[in-house]
């Protein structure tokens, strides 16, 4: 990797002031160091954001006792994936979140990777990650996946880049309707998961909607959906990216589902959701037949490429499995 200056920030404001025009924040470093070693990015300054004792919310999981319909669980940006995956009380109220976190990387990665790093990780497309190719995402003039090897690429996209979002947390967060708090241009803004990723849907040179200097603070998870689940299929049973992932959340009473949200991962540059499927499922029995019809609605506009057609039936099966896993 190229050389750089290293500096530790003690507050989010200080981090924003230190990052400059070509800086990067460093937390777990798994994604960033990988990109720097391959010269995908070469920051002038690396701002260590692990030394922040204030605000304390950055490093904590706040789970209110006596869960009510209006309560939220708040997880700080610096909380590690291992801390989420091992949280016994979270497991009771947000089982889908635990399932999604447990499937991230390996023990070594989960121990250092943070919530913010997982949400903000960059594309895993092999053309994007190849040092000798300047693809569309890196400012080149074409996406090589269209005519090239596109086994792991998107079924849906609003732009010419075919690389999908691969963050497990983005998928379960979309299903749980999480609000992300971000420090941006001196103010604190709250973004939905759709807003957090929408830029990547239309702009091939982005991975999400944040500017490089924007600073992620917390994720706020509504606890009103009492059932949640996450399922993925990968080529390896452990330590692998999902070929397709699916998350669902909702309430189930007397076999009927309400307030349901379903999101797919690794099939689009954003966690992919179809409102029509949610409307269809509202108040219906949670049966394989209904889950299958919802899957048809979600996958209606899929545009398979030369090598990723397998993702359509895989996603169909995963949607059914994940929805049926909501049954208590």
């Amino acid at each position, binding site marked *: *990797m*190229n*050389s*750089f*200056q*290293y*500096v*530790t*920030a*003690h507050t989010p404001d200080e981090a924003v002031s*230190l990052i400059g025009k070509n800086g990067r924040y*460093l937390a777990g*470093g*798994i994604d960033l*160091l*990988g990109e*720097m*070693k391959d010269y995908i990015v070469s920051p002038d*300054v*690396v701002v*260590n954001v*692990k*030394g922040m004792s204030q605000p304390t919310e950055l490093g904590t999981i706040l789970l209110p006792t006596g869960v009510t319909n209006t309560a939220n669980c708040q997880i700080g940006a610096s909380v590690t994936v*291992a801390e989420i995956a091992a949280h016994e009380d979270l497991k009771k109220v947000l089982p889908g979140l635990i399932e999604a976190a447990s499937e991230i*990387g*390996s*023990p*070594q*990665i989960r*121990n*250092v990777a943070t919530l913010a790093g997982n949400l903000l990780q960059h594309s895993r497309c092999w053309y994007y990650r190849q040092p000798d190719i300047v693809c569309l995402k890196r400012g080149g003039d074409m996406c090589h996946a269209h005519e090239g090897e596109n086994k792991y690429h998107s079924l849906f996209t609003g732009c010419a880049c075919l690389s999908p979002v691969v963050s497990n947390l983005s998928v379960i967060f979309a299903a749980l309707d999480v609000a992300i708090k971000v420090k941006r241009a001196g103010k604190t803004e709250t973004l939905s998961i759709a807003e957090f990723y929408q830029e990547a849907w239309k702009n091939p040179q982005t991975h999400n909607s944040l500017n490089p200097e924007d600073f992620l603070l917390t994720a706020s998870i509504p606890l009103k959906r009492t059932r949640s689940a996450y399922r993925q299929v990968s080529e*390896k*049973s*452990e*330590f692998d990216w999902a070929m397709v992932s699916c998350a669902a959340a909702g309430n189930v009473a007397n076999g009927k589902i309400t307030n349901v949200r379903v999101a797919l991962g690794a099939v689009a540059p954003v966690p992919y959701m179809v409102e029509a499927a949610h409307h269809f499922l509202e108040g219906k029995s949670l049966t394989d037949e209904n889950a299958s019809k919802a899957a048809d609605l979600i996958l209606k506009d899929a545009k398979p490429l030369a090598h990723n057609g397998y993702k359509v039936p895989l996603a169909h099966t995963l949607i059914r499995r994940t929805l049926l896993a909501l049954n208590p």
Partner: protein
Amino acid sequence: MSSNPSSLPTVNRRTFLKSIGTSAVAVASVQVGAMADEINKAAGPGPQGPDAVPITLSINGEKKDFQLEPRVTLLDALRNHGPLTGAKEVCDRGTCGACTVFIDGKLTYSCMKLAIDAQGHEITTIEGLGKNGQLTAVQQAFVDCDALMCGFCTPGLVMAATALLASNPKPTESEIKRGCSGNLCRCGTYPHVIKAVLKASGATVTETTTVTNYGSVA
């Protein structure tokens, strides 16, 4: 004056000035050091690099000083500046686990950690596991179960197995696979590794014990 001058401490001009000099410097440097610590605590050291900067790492219970650029990884610092060559460099991308160490007791890829970022934390390498030349139970079980072929992945797998048993002293076969999932063995010794971890956990493992379904490990 005493008739026996040898019983007196021999203080001459040179040793007198020398002792005054060093004690004054020592007092001064303690004060400067304390002041620097206070300043660092308040504001941090400011931007460091890109040239080599002083870095202090706590490795296997001993403080060690380095002069390294911020871009040097912990693995590089250990192996090429340590020199502690137990942690191995293979993929250098956080994929194979050969570089695995503990940072504050937690399993970590040292190739994906900057050395400058590991300051202030306790680093344990494979060299720091056994005490007084004795193998740990995990290391002995790897020997007994023939859990290595070329041996290049072994330090990383021993670290992963040690971390697993610390948090889960009686793991099942599938828990062992999951605990060791961040470590690749190119020779494919996985069934013997699983046997070794089972043995280290106190399970009865014999010549004829077979580990099934190991194909799903890697």
